[in-house]
């Protein structure tokens, strides 16, 4: 027999107090400020904004502090906060072609107009630990050169002129929003991109890597990668016109993929697209590869049965808050469920033993 019990309030309160104390760590060490996290752990802040799906660096920094640096816990906090915000509306689609680029590189065209601008990248560092940072920090000042004032054109524009790359026709179809309507399959490309941009970086990276290793390989080149700020505009009904309501930092990756043609499409280059809040280079490249893999049906390619081609598999498992919620709930009390399983196994065991014992008794 099982009796429901209630309790644990005292233990939970004390656990919360201990959590707060452990979060603070030794009081001999100066406490971290939100501004320090925002400025000095900015790539962690960016990841929390991207996967929390809310651009607000101060909030993301607070979440990281509260979560003791557990980024998925921090993303959870941001997602929870996000649901409390009244939605004022939807922006006009941002113009990434007008981005003020901190970084802009192309693996396909050396001499692209605007040039190869490396920006503050890890790429050419030697990945050797810098013990100077442990000692006395850093006050390096970045050199400056004559700033570019005009917008930097997208690489894909050049290939378009030759009609050798698949077009992205502009439309004004209203996209679905998975924060408002549950995802249904088959999905649409706009919904897939929304799901991928807020998906877990590790998961999207793993999926993208699987395509590179041969599970629906799509021969991707990074046509262009750019990082920088873009203005966000929204129509304000009471004004009757659009204004800028702010700016967001974005990382955009467009892959150019070799494509031999299909029943419906001539041989040409195709495209995969990644766009992520903040400086999130790995994520946006991975997103572009997975986006391209998921486009097999639209491009008339074969379904090779690869995981990255299966949109239900990819989109249903990309969200780390859904995943961690379901995963971690199994550590919470399941006393009743387990009690019934225990009864069942005991009964099976008894029956099995009874089948054996009569024989023994007869001997």
């Amino acid at each position, binding site marked *: 027999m099982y009796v429901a019990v209630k309790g644990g309030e005292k233990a939970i309160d004390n656990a919360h107090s201990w959590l707060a104390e452990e979060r603070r760590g030794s009081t001999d060490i100066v406490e971290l400020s939100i501004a320090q996290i925002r400025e000095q752990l900015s790539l962690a802040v960016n990841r929390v904004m991207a996967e929390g799906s809310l651009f607000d660096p101060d909030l993301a920094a607070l979440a990281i502090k509260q979560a003791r640096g557990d980024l998925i816990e921090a993303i959870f906090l941001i997602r929870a906060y996000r649901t409390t915000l*009244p*939605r*004022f*509306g*939807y922006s006009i689609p941002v113009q990434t072609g007008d981005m003020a680029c901190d970084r802009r590189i192309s693996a396909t065209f050396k001499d692209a107009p605007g040039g190869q601008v490396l920006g503050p990248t890890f790429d050419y560092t030697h990945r050797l630990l810098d013990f100077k940072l442990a000692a006395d920090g850093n006050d390096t000042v970045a050199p400056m050169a004559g700033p570019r004032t005009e917008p930097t054109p997208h690489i894909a524009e050049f290939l378009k002129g030759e009609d050798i790359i698949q077009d992205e026709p502009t439309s004004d179809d209203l996209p679905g929003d998975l924060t*408002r309507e549950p995802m249904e399959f088959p999905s649409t490309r706009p919904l897939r991109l929304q799901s991928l941009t807020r998906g877990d970086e590790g998961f999207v990276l793993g999926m993208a890597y699987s395509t590179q290793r041969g599970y629906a390989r799509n021969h991707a080149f990074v046509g262009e990668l750019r990082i920088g700020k873009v203005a966000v505009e929204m129509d304000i*009904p*009471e004004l009757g016109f659009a204004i800028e309501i702010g700016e967001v930092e974005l990382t955009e990756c467009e892959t150019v993929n070799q494509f031999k043609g299909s029943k419906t499409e001539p041989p040409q280059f195709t495209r995969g697209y990644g766009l992520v809040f903040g400086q999130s280079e790995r994520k946006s490249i991975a997103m572009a590869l997975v986006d391209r893999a998921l486009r097999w049906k639209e491009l008339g390619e074969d379904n090779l049965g690869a995981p990255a081609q299966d949109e239900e598999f990819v989109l249903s498992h990309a969200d780390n808050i859904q995943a961690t919620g379901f995963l971690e709930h199994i550590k919470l009390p399941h006393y009743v469920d387990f009690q019934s399983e225990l009864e069942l196994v005991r009964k099976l065991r008894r029956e099995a033993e009874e089948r054996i014992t009569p024989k023994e008794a007869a001997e």
Partner: protein
Amino acid sequence: MSAHPQFSGGFANAPIEAAHAFRAAMTVMARPGEIRSIAGARPPKPLSQAAGTLLLTLCDPDTRVFFAGATDTAAVRQWLTFHTGAPIVEASSADFAVGTWADLQRNSNYRIGTPEYPDRSATLIVECETLAQNGTTLTGPGIRDRSQLSLPDVAVFQDNSALYPLGCDFFFTCRDKVAALPRSTQITAGS
């Protein structure tokens, strides 16, 4: 302030007033036949205070609103847009439709939901001359034995409840009073 009617007439203290209004809306929907006061908004004519307060409480940029007949004025549209950002649409795609019963009845294509998503249906806010606990008899979920409400029609509401779990839901508004009729309620004429 009268120079800017579209900007005035909102909640003075939105979180509190919207919470009270939501409570009233929820209560009348859960207890068909019950009449409650609902106030806070001062909408442009011809909207009643109750209908205006419901709109401010229930609408945002994701809820599509249809104004039927006399309620569809420039002042009403601007007022709703400023305070809620709700898009104004045709009857067939509305989440909320507002008007007198006669005006609302000129359309018969309100959304009734789908078998997978019965919630994708319209809620009609019916402006009434009077609202009283007499007339039609109501039975069903949320009603102990029976209740009564002065519905503007009988057959149409009976047809709607026959669609259950699909169908529309209704609020009835009159000055600062509100009542409701969900699709789950059974309607019989007279008392």
